[in-house]
């Protein structure tokens, strides 16, 4: 009995972050997602140490060799080691996922706060622009932006980031609308806090869980978007490895070197799947209704 009381007391004193962690780690699928993401990040960071070959080094004696002990994933049309290229490709994909969603968060959250807390006119104008941007299908806007900015990984990340921005504007605005009528916000206003301080100190921390969940799921979308742009030739430029551009090349050699298409695709799938299930897990772990 005393032990149970102690446990309840301990749980009551648990910080929100610790509670979320505990709840997240209870979900097997979310732990799997988190583990794979950690592994992919390590692979990306330690790529030069893990990769057995230089990912851009061509070898005319090893063109389109099937998987073997020497080349675990086989080689491509220029004799480059596919295992090394898939490892280095993790850099482009993860970078694109994180950087583009950081851009979207960096722009979307302040604009969303402004819409939700900056008065009716501000809200109406921002709302219409957000509607308009969301009306253009994600990939088509990203392609058009990437095309006009010029093909490169950096521009692809900017294009994906800008395209994803309205999602965060809308989410932040909606959350602000829900939170700003809460008693603690009213109280903060009543004691004379300026609007900017209320928005940053009182509203932002309370809408953070929703933003974290959306950001995690959006990273998955951004990874697919980067792979798509690179597949179309609008992202990472050769000879630098990217999973999307590797698939583009692989398509031309499907008859005699099908392994070229298997590995980069599996890598994209695994990365996207991990972020999706981590996002699902976070949604459950951060949901206040389930506390």
């Amino acid at each position, binding site marked *: 009995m005393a032990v149970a009381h102690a446990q309840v007391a301990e749980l009551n004193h648990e910080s929100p972050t610790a509670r979320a962690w505990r709840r997240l780690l209870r979900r097997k699928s979310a732990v799997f997602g988190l583990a794979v993401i950690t592994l992919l990040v390590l692979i990306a960071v330690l790529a030069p140490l893990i990769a057995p070959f230089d990912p851009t080094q061509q070898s005319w004696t090893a063109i389109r060799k099937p998987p073997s002990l020497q080349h675990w994933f086989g080689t491509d049309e220029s004799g480059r080691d596919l295992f090394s290229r898939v490892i280095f490709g993790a850099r482009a994909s993860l970078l694109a996922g994180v950087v583009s969603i950081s851009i979207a968060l960096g722009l979307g959250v302040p604009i969303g706060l402004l819409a939700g807390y900056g008065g009716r006119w501000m809200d109406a104008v921002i709302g*219409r*622009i957000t*509607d*308009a*941007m969301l*009306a*253009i*299908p*994600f*990939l*088509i*806007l990203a*392609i*058009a*932006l990437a*095309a*006009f*900015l*010029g093909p490169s990984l950096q521009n692809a990340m900017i294009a994906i980031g800008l395209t994803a921005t309205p999602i965060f504007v809308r989410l932040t605005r909606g959350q602000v609308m829900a939170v700003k009528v809460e008693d603690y916000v009213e109280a903060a206003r009543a004691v004379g806090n300026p609007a900017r301080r209320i928005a940053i100190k009182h509203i932002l921390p309370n809408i953070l869980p929703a933003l974290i969940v959306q950001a995690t799921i959006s990273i*998955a979308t951004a990874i*697919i978007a980067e*792979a*798509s742009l690179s*597949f*179309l*030739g*609008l992202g990472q430029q050769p000879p630098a490895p990217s999973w999307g551009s590797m*698939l583009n090349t*692989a*398509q031309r050699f*499907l*008859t005699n070197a*099908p392994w070229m*298409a*298997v590995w*980069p*695709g599996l890598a*994209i*799938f695994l990365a*996207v*799947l991990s972020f*999706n*299930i981590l996002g699902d897990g976070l949604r459950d772990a951060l949901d206040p209704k389930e506390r």
Partner: protein
Amino acid sequence: MLVFLAKRLLQLIPTLFIVSVIIFGLQQLLPGDPALAMAGEERDPQVLEQIRRQYRLDQPFYIQYLYWVGGVLSGNLGESMRLKEPVLTLIAQKFPVTLQLALMAIVISLTIGITAGIMSAVKRDTPIDYAVNLVALWGISTPNFWLGIMLIFLFAVHLGWLPASGYVSPFQDFWLSMQTTILPAFVLGNSFAAVLMRHTRSAMLQAMSSDYVRTARAKGLAERVVVLKHAMRNALTPIVTLGALELGTLLSGAVLTEQVFSIPGFGKLIVDSVFNRDYAVVQGVTLITATTYILLNLLADIAYVLINPRLRS
């Protein structure tokens, strides 16, 4: 209902205006002189001057925009620099191809998604439910261009059952048309089927735990009737609107699918134009896609109100 319709139609005007500004504004992002990009290899100052005059690049942004939007409103989206044809003609040629693909994808995904979603909800917490959830997660996480490549390898290269690429119109040869479009339609509909599975499952679970389903069961109706007549009808209302909205998203997914299967549709047109710096086509296709999406959104809203008796008043 009429007030609702009028309000929604009025809301379209500012949205469409901003969409057009964004799409036209993309050209301003072009690094350097657009005339240089349009001229290609040509570096003759006289030619460049002529291009600037012809496309009004020597005028301020808002004047250029007004000319462009004036043209759009009178049905002139400009001319493709590469194909020397009006953009609208090109779109009219390519749109039916993508539409056929998108409609087939919707039929495939509705069939798979709704059936699997209902089964999963009815057999909750059984191996069937777990399997459907896994398939849905797989569908959401698989890039459709990779799935396309793998299916080409399996069905065209390895088994030789279906053609690897190309397109035949159903009016020319229906059977051959189905053969060329079945794989791309499946690839295009794959992620939508996954989304539908998840939505149908949760909507059905909600419906199955509602009072009217409990009443139907208490009346002694057969479980099949309870599921199909009482629960499903109510659960599927939001799915109708989701279907209409998804048609717009499918247009965007078609870009990659058409590229993988070499299908001469809308998506391939935009990609080819991007690489040939045919900006008028890029702007035209983006504008038409966005407008279609906005109109579908409106139709979905209207359909939702019409289907849901509680909202009709």
